[in-house]
């Protein structure tokens, strides 16, 4: 590949925050899955057994939520949904079939990413709230059994939704070449930016926030 222009897509702080959230998500997810279905119970061994998984899961979850809120605050300005996003959304079929011709220009993130941010935020808030009703031995005894039953259903359902989001997010990052690098190294090529985030690329070009680098 030739020498080309690089654009910083994710700052060091954003990258560290993202991976902190990712690691905590995996820890929370793996420690919680064992309680979701017996088929996953063996995963609790990763944490020292069922009791340790039960003890650690809510702490992982609370730290995850706090880190995620900070991440959302960092990236929120680029996550506002604009009319361009809905134009883009009409071409979702072409986008998924790798036919970029004619897909409208969008900002730094596409509508799928923006919706993901919102669904994750909602899920984490619901998981946090419902989790408190189930958190033994600290909080659960304060609530009625019926409230805890509702919380258990809500917690399991929301965990399912967030796992679906996780699968979609990881796959989308793998599918879009250059996306993982943008979250590990921070930069994307100018061509990548122009291709995926045309409006953002133009803004970057105007403000001159580009750096030279070797690919």
């Amino acid at each position, binding site marked *: 590949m030739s020498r080309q222009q690089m654009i910083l897509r994710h700052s060091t702080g954003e990258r560290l925050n993202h991976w902190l959230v990712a690691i905590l998500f995996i820890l929370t997810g793996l420690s919680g899955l064992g309680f979701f279905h017996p088929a996953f119970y063996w995963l609790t061994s990763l944490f020292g057994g069922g009791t340790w998984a039960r003890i650690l899961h809510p702490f992982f979850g609370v730290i995850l939520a706090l880190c995620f809120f900070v991440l959302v605050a960092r990236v929120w300005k680029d996550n506002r949904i604009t009319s361009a996003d809905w134009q883009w959304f009409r071409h979702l079929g072409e986008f998924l*079939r790798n036919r970029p011709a004619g897909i409208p220009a969008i900002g730094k993130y596409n509508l799928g990413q923006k919706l993901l941010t919102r669904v994750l935020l909602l899920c984490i808030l619901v998981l946090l709230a419902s989790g408190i009703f189930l958190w033994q*031995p600290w909080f659960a005894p304060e609530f009625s059994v019926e409230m805890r039953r509702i919380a258990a259903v809500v917690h399991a359902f929301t965990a399912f939704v967030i796992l679906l989001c996780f699968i979609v997010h990881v796959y989308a990052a793998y599918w879009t070449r*250059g996306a993982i690098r943008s979250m590990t190294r921070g930069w994307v090529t100018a061509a990548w930016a122009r291709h995926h985030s045309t409006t953002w690329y133009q803004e970057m070009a105007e403000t001159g926030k580009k750096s030279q680098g070797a690919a």
Partner: protein
Amino acid sequence: MALQSLDIRRRSATTTPSPQARTTLEIAKLIDISKCIGCKACQVACMEWNDLRDTVGTNRGVYDNPADLSAQSWTVMRFAEVEPDPGRLEWLIRKDGCMHCSDPGCLKSCPAPGAIIQYSNGIVDFHQEACVGCGYCIIGCPFNIPRLSATDNKAYKCTLCSDRVAVGREPACAKTCPTGAILFGAKEDLLEHSAGRIADLKERGYRNAGLYNPPGVDGTHVMYVLQHADRPELYSGLPSDPGISPLVVLWKDIAKTVMGIGLGAAIVGGVVHFLTQGPNEINEEEEETL
């Protein structure tokens, strides 16, 4: 570790068959409330046999002592002063504790393999060494029985003296009851015996006397003879139609299946998408233009 001399009908969070080569008799405990004098000898016998010592509580102005079940009190007498008919005071004393349901909500809810065992004789037993302390058994129970210990975060409740029953002895409470209000034996025999008791009570004017063996949990292995079987709630809130909550069924049966399929489909969907559409990449020429 489950008792080796007893076969297992169900085991919590386990999807393969449990040991069931032996044939054991279905047993039960029959508590005849019309014979109970509220002496609490059963509570003492339970403490003695199981080596339990609850903390000394405070007088609340009623006979109930201790006030509630706990990790150290697996059975308590609940005293209710009620007027089933106007002007006719009755003191209904119910020995509360695990009912040993045929369809146990605790076992359905438990995520820890082998922490809750239902023996083929009907006893539902907690194995604390496999318990993770999540408290889901409390959520699953229709009778509000299991209690988490503040000391070790494990759930405890009446074992129906599974250790005694396994070697052919009756539960400690049944052995000690001075009036014969607690009977232990084959469930079939006790059903027959209760029919005689109920006929007797009806003769004595208790028109609605009957057996409490609720069908919502497929029957229990602790049954009551009630003077007022039409109104079990008179007996310190004994539920009139107990069953596993629909929320617990939604959580444990329906959700597990639907969500398992959903997550599997998402993964398969990703693989198929990638294999049919390939990566979302920028071609060489496009890179060269910058």
